[in-house]
């Protein structure tokens, strides 16, 4: 519990549109620092809702969520925004880069939001991240001038810019071909192993899911299964070292 980055207890979300529609019901789980977990389930099962709640993009109807030991229930909009900025990194199915800005500016955006100045030190830090993701050559290009695979990697670089303790990825390979999907997984693993960043990845891709240390399966808004995948971490560790 002391090492738990994330503790969700009885997390529920009901949408009140025309009639109350439960999207997530009584979900409890925790995620330790440096853990690499995947969330699977059918479309509409509540995976993205869970990720939105955990990422403080949405608020639960009931239940509690502790991030880094802090109860998120009492946080106002500004405090939630700050926590999203510093504690969490998001990677979405669509890259969601800002077309008005260059690759390096997009990557620096979370740091700029945090209040850092646009200076050589910041750009250098962004370059280190971009180089790690093999994007050094496109750093000064406009975000629109890069390929689909590159854009998703830029989005990953952006998510990592503030060195978050937790990366939440919602179908990060949903729009990528097999080769780029494998590349994204490798990058996630690399960051997970080198920086100790925890990952919670919502995915339909069984290959990605099976390569996680742990699989959480959501069905009809409930957490049906929470299992560890034996040996995956050790194999990945070995692969990373080789």
């Amino acid at each position, binding site marked *: 519990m002391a090492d738990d980055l994330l503790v969700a207890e009885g997390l529920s979300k009901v949408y009140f549109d025309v009639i109350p529609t439960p999207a997530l019901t009584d979900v409890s789980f925790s995620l330790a620092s440096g853990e690499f977990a995947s969330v699977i389930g059918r479309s509409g099962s509540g995976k993205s809702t869970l990720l939105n709640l955990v990422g403080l993009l949405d608020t639960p109807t009931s239940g509690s969520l502790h991030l880094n030991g802090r109860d998120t229930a009492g946080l106002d*909009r500004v405090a939630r925004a700050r926590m999203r900025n510093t504690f969490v990194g998001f990677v*979405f199915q669509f890259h969601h880069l800002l077309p*008005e800005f260059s690759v390096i500016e997009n990557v620096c955006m979370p740091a700029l939001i945090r209040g850092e100045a646009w200076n050589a030190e910041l750009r250098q830090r962004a370059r280190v991240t971009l180089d790690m993701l093999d994007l050094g050559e496109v750093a000064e290009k406009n975000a629109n001038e890069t390929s689909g695979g590159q854009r998703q990697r830029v989005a990953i670089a952006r998510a990592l810019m503030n060195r978050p303790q937790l990366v939440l990825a*919602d179908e990060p390979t949903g729009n990528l071909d097999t080769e780029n999907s494998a590349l994204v997984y490798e990058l996630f693993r690399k960051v997970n192993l080198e920086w100790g960043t925890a990952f919670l990845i919502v995915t339909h891709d069984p290959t990605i899911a099976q390569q996680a240390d742990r699989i959480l399966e959501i069905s009809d808004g409930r957490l049906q299964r929470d299992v560890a995948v034996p040996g995956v971490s050790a194999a990945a560790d070995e692969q990373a070292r080789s």
Partner: protein
Amino acid sequence: MLSLRIATRFLRTGRGQSLLIIAGIAVGIAVQIFVGTLIMSLQATLLETTIGNASHVTLQNVDEKKPIRYSPALQRGLASDRRVRLIVPDRVLSVIFSKGTDSAPISVVGALPRDINAIYKMEKHLVAGRMVSDPQDVILGKSFATKYRLSVGDPVLVVLPGGSQQKLKLVGLFDVGTSAVNDRIGFTTPVFPRQALGLGPDEYTDIQTQLTDPFASTRVIADWATLEAFSGVKYKDWQVESSQLLVGLQGQSSSSYMIQVFVLVAVALGIASTLAISAVQKTRQIGILKAMGMTDATAGAVFLWEAGILGVFGTGLGFVFGLGLLRLFALGPITFTIVLDPAFVGGSCAIGIVVSLLSAIIPSRQTSRIDPIEVIQGG
């Protein structure tokens, strides 16, 4: 500052849209400066023509048949009122000009030469000869002199109200541009009318005054009416005498304000609608930024900066356009002087920028309603 950085980038990437809105603000501010300055200048010229060379408050004896006594108490009362910028005690005498078989009624105004100059700017209007200095000197309108074939140096024979005749000497000719003065009034020293009217040394037919603020005349009269030194005095207020002119000026001002208000409303609506469209266009970007932790306030500030930048550039351009229009207009055949009022121009520019900023309120509020989840799931 991140919001400023994003705002300038949004404006630069939507260059066409930005330039159009800047042009819109510029036209609005230019019209505001042009119309406002034109009407103010026109009114100033009209006022100057009407009351610049006239008394604002004229003091007379409450019994019109009797002269007013310019007592030391009254002198002190007038001199100590800082709202009064000019005091001209004068003696007005109605006489009949006579030359051969010709005759014409004229009013001879007797006052100190410096006072005549101060109120009628006579040295400026003198076209021949000199100002009066001796008791028998008189100056007449140039048109009057032409009509009766009079030249500087000629004797001027006048018949006094009692029927006696008096010979004056024409020492100068003036042209004040108003036939009512040029054809019917002559100026002399206070001595001759005093003798003709049989007045004492401190007695005058009236005391003319000009105020630093002509529109304060009614208030000034009300104040004087309560003072002991002013007892037995009757007042003529230029605002009452020229009430029709004032109604005209007020109508002009109202129409000017209407035009200016509508121009500003049009500018505000233009900016607000463009920014609102921009906010909709940038919903995705704002949503992503908010997902990354940007606060509602910073997101709203983006549009405030956009409005501020558009306002400053639009207003600056409008200022230049406005001055250019006024300069062009001044090249034409106009009968009044265009005077640029720095306070009005500065105020117009400030209003332009403030209106621009106010126009950002709706788009800024729009951004706080942007839900990052909808943007993320929308793709």
